[in-house]
């Protein structure tokens, strides 16, 4: 789960990391109230989960009230890589002389957190990592002991941070690591850390991604989850507690188990179709869950046909069949054609239960996928 910049900055500030003064605003008048309090220059920053906001026009620096109004009108409501900007952060502009990168993430290859510092801040750090990996100093942390102070110092000196700022920057890195651990982050970074013309060190941006599996012990962050959804259907999936990713195609896909659902998507693509979504009902799904899944996929106006692919292990075919029957019999006519493929645990029982007036049944994954694609073509022809 990604936090917005303003949410992450609040957490950083509470932990003692210096951040610029700022206000959150969702209307032009709120932006003007904010700049009246903060003064100029002021940065107006779109709060959406999109990388490269600046380049895409989502961040503007206003030098006076008139500019602030113009930029607020431009940015609020704008479409940024598919997401509508509903909120902006209005932040005191920082007069900086240097930009650094500081972050902590999980190195999955090593199975350990890694702390990183680079003097190549303010730019796409992933590009730096790819092209000049030596420009990023890295310290792997033993998760059973946490990051030791010497490691933070070492990273800062190895990165070549000017000595007079070493203490402040290693302080930020240590605090980030502590937050990473305490808040179950999967990624936490400040890019850039700005060194101001007054020789101060300020976190000018903030990225914080939380491990969704750990939300049960992060109640404050779990409350922010609702705001993290960018799409009404993904929000609905959250309410149903279903693993769902919306895509741009017209073949709705429901299955059990992430690998099998991904494979179903891939096969739809392979046979010339276009997947509308990823939807994993998970292991051991009962009838109600199956009904919710169908409701969710039918709610996507792009969906023209649905393929249901179940290979039961822990999931039982008869339960799934009951869910499909119940969900579809609630409609006078089934809204979109549904193809079902049932295999594995209790598949035979499921096949007997399935109401074939409501769905088409195919014996193999390949046939089910091809039938579902053919069904979209029929819909289009109509």
């Amino acid at each position, binding site marked *: 789960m990604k936090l917005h910049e303003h949410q992450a900055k609040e957490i950083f500030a509470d932990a003692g990391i210096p951040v610029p003064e700022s206000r959150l605003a969702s209307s032009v008048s709120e932006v003007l109230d904010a700049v009246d309090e903060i003064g100029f220059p002021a940065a107006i920053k779109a709060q959406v989960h999109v990388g490269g906001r600046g380049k895409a026009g989502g961040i503007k620096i206003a030098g006076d009230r008139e500019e602030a109004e113009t930029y607020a009108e431009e940015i609020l409501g704008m479409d940024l890589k598919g997401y509508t900007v509903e909120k902006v952060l209005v932040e005191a502009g920082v007069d900086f002389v240097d930009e650094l990168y500081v972050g902590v993430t999980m190195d999955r290859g090593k199975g350990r957190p890694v702390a990183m510092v680079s003097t190549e801040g303010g730019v796409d750090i992933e590009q730096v990592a790819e092209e000049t990996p030596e420009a990023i100093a890295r310290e792997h942390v033993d998760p059973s002991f946490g990051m030791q102070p010497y490691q933070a110092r070492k990273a800062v000196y190895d990165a070549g941070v000017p000595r007079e700022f070493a203490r402040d920057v290693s302080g930020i890195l240590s605090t980030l690591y502590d937050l990473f651990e305490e808040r179950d982050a999967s990624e936490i970074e400040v890019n850039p850390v700005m060194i101001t013309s007054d020789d101060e060190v300020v976190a000018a941006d903030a990225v914080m991604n939380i491990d969704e599996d750990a939300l049960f012990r992060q109640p404050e962050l779990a409350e922010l989850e609702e705001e993290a959804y960018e799409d009404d259907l993904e929000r609905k999936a959250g309410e149903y507690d279903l693993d769902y990713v919306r895509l741009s195609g017209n073949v709705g896909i429901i299955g059990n*188990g992430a690998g099998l659902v*991904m494979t179903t998507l*891939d096969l739809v693509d*392979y046979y010339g179709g276009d997947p509308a979504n990823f939807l994993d009902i998970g292991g051991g799904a009962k009838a109600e869950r199956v009904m919710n899944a169908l409701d969710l996929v039918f709610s996507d106006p792009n969906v023209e046909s649905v393929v249901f692919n179940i290979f039961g292990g822990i999931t039982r075919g008869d339960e799934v069949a009951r869910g499909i029957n119940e969900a579809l019999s609630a409609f006078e006519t089934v809204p979109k054609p549904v193809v079902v493929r049932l295999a594995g645990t209790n598949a035979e029982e499921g096949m007997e239960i399935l109401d074939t007036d409501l769905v088409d049944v195919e014996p193999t994954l390949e046939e089910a996928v091809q039938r579902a694609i053919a069904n979209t073509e029929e819909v289009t022809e109509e």
Partner: protein
Amino acid sequence: MSIFVDDDTRVVVQGITGGEGRFHAEQMIDYGTNVVAGAVPGKGGESVHDVPVYDTVDRAVEAENANASVVFVPPAFAADAIFEALDTDLDLVVAITEGIPTQDMARVKKRLSEVDTRLIGPNCPGIITPGEAKLGILPGNIFAEGNVGLVSRSGTLTYQVVDNLTQRGIGQTTAVGIGGDPIIGTSFIDALEAFEADTDTDAVVMCGEIGGEDEERAAAFIAEHMDTPVAGFIAGRTAPPGKRMGHAGAIVSGSGTGTAESKIEALNEAGVPVGDTPEEVADHVEDFL
């Protein structure tokens, strides 16, 4: 022969009194697995399917001479359950639990480096040596005894591919689901190494997916160390960057690493044919045999 489990494996089921633990303990017993004990704090002295339950793994292992455990413990307590198992010198721990926080697994992984126990999972379907033993939730009836090894990051994809093999009369030595989380115990390489050393395994299927670089590392291992032919499958070709596709580990990073293309390319370079569909994977295996 087989890898990691056989009919001598003696299993403790951690969490045997819970819904999942109870159900799958019975399934394992029905399959012929030696389930010798359960371990659940506070439930010592009870029994489930005639299997005695102990309060601690330690007591279960000592009383029943177990050498493996299967963990069916909810995510909030699962890391603790794995630590407990690792403290008893078992040969093998299989963690089925889905949704263990990554930082908990980082600590488990550190502990793992200090003991001799093998961990499979978490968030995995388990491991099966057809006709001998199954530790986990895999549906036993789709597997058949034979000479093909299988290692996979995904449970249901394992079933799909195994079904394609079994339908053609191709059986398996051992199938192991290593799990879809970012940090796991047994890697592709660990399983491939064991299959390479197993004289009964004549071909191997490796099912990967988007996210991380484990498949790329496995490809390098295959090129350098394996004579046994390997066929591959990679799920998630159509996955968009930045979105978690069900598995916590299945996410293509914004910088383009962990894509299906890079994994398929690495495998192809290592001489591993990668099927576009599970049927094609079975075709490749058939060609090897």
